[in-house]
């Protein structure tokens, strides 16, 4: 032990670093610092079609992302996703759920999202930017091969035009195949 302490003192002398006296006050966590950095990197990604809102501005680990696609089948909709990030981020991926009941092949009626980087392909080197771009892409190119809403995926595969009509119906709060959807047309 004495050896380690003398090594540390030596290292200290070499580096001539400033004192970092211990404190009992809570310290900014690694997860918070990483999210803070990730949020700063969103500038340029969000653009006109996406925005974030923070119900508690002091808590940057929980926020809502709104996507308003300006092209594609979901154009005109306003889709809300709840982001919940835990203290084990970026080892753990953020938990992302759609807060509305929508008709989408990759999002189920509970709001679960099938996006590979949110689960099986998540890596700590990925960031919030990657997740947000991935979500945006789901609205531009819904994907019938990774279905969470089987009926919607089947519609997309077998009858693209019918699927488009169903999207419009569902977005204005109508029912598709006896399932009532939430109105998501932007105000």
């Amino acid at each position, binding site marked *: 032990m004495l050896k380690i302490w003398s090594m540390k003192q030596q290292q200290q002398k070499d580096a001539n670093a400033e004192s*970092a006296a211990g404190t009992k006050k809570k310290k900014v966590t*690694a997860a918070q610092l990483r999210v*803070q950095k990730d949020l700063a990197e969103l500038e340029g990604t969000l653009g006109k079609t996406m925005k*974030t809102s923070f119900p508690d501005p002091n808590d940057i680990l929980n926020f809502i992302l709104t996507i308003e696609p300006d092209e594609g089948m979901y154009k005109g909709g306003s889709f809300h996703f709840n982001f919940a990030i835990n203290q084990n981020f970026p080892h753990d991926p953020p938990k992302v759920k759609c807060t509305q009941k929508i008709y989408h092949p990759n999002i189920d009626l509970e709001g679960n999202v099938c996006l590979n980087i949110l689960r099986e392909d998540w890596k700590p080197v990925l960031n919030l930017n990657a997740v947000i771009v991935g979500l945006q892409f789901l609205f531009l190119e819904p994907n019938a091969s990774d279905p969470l809403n089987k009926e919607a995926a089947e519609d997309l595969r077998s009858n693209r035009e019918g699927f488009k009509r169903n999207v419009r119906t569902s977005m204005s709060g109508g029912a598709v195949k006896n399932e009532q959807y939430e109105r998501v047309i932007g105000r």
Partner: protein
Amino acid sequence: METMVNGIEHSRERWRYLDYFLNKPGPTSDPEWLPGEQTINSLETSKVLVIGAGGLGCEILKNLALSGFKDIHVIDMDTIDVSNLNRQFLFREADVGKSKAECAAAFVEKRVKGVKITPFNGKIQDKDEDYYMQFKMIICGLDSIEARRWINATLVGMVDTENPESLKPLIDGGTEGFKGQSRVILPTMNSCIECQLDMHTPRAAVPLCTLATIPRQPAHCIEWAHIIAWEEHRKDDILDTDDPEHITWLYQKALARAQEFNIPGVTYSMTQGVVKNIIPAIASTNAIIAASCCNEAFKIATSCNPWLQNYMMYSGDDGVYTYTFETEQKEDCPVCGNLAKSLTVNPNMTLQEFIDSLGERAEAQLMKPTLRTEEKSLYSQFPASLREQTAPNLEKRLSELVENGEEIGISDPAFAIAFKYKLIFSS
């Protein structure tokens, strides 16, 4: 030499073989090292903390006690489950339901005379820096990355350059099936757990759409019950993986789904395993890794031989392979890459004035800084919504926003690393 203390016979005879290493120098011992009484005394008075009293923890406690450590503390928040008994050899059937820390401590104390083991049945987060400060070193046998990151950040944060004893070596063991690792972390002096975060195996996950549409394995049905069915039917209950009623509910849902897809093999214990993410534990791998950790603890406490620098991986999957290498400190490590520096500020200064002053500081010409404390977002440049919400803080005095001595984290798009300052109010 034999002495009687409290009626217990204290003799070095028991430690005869250990003393070969402590009473005379060996070919690899440091030339400046002094063998003998002082070294033995240093081992016996070293108060060490073991985190975790599970598979690795049982081995670690036993090994430390048999290596001559006399003052050992142990923390674990878990209670003993019947499935632990095959490898967590300090526990018996009658102990099921009792605290792991308390049972393990009582067993080792009884078995190894003269050792004092102090248990704490709770979470590591329940304890503060004052608690961790009393130990010479910390030996971890944990199964969670989150807990490792927490203790690592705490120990890095405790390092006080004015007080060398504030540096607590952290010895971390981990196993998964036939694979394992041990590492020696000297907080702030070498690569820390956060530096090595990307090296951890990610949790194996199955695509959500597979779970939802075409399950192929019993585990898929259990994950479906866990992630999808629970949300659908019991949204308002918080899933407690230790509650038998909750596990039974998931088991029945998973079983029904497995039957629907003709998948055999869903059992109650498998449900428990998948939901709690239980990794198959092999007693012998735990023994190997714990042995390595405890030898390092022994070498560090006595300085008798050089210790591990700084990572040993063991793989028994395909024959045996082991490799020792030195992981390097990450310059942009959010925990040890940039330690909090003390910064004396006028508490009457506004946040805006403080930010302006940061732009003038030579070491960090921060142009667009975002600042926060553990509790508060002080000012965020981006996203726009957060900027608007935090902008009113710019006019506030520092004393209204932070406490004297509180740490703030600053990030800036121009820098990959975050800066940390401990704000000291000038009087």
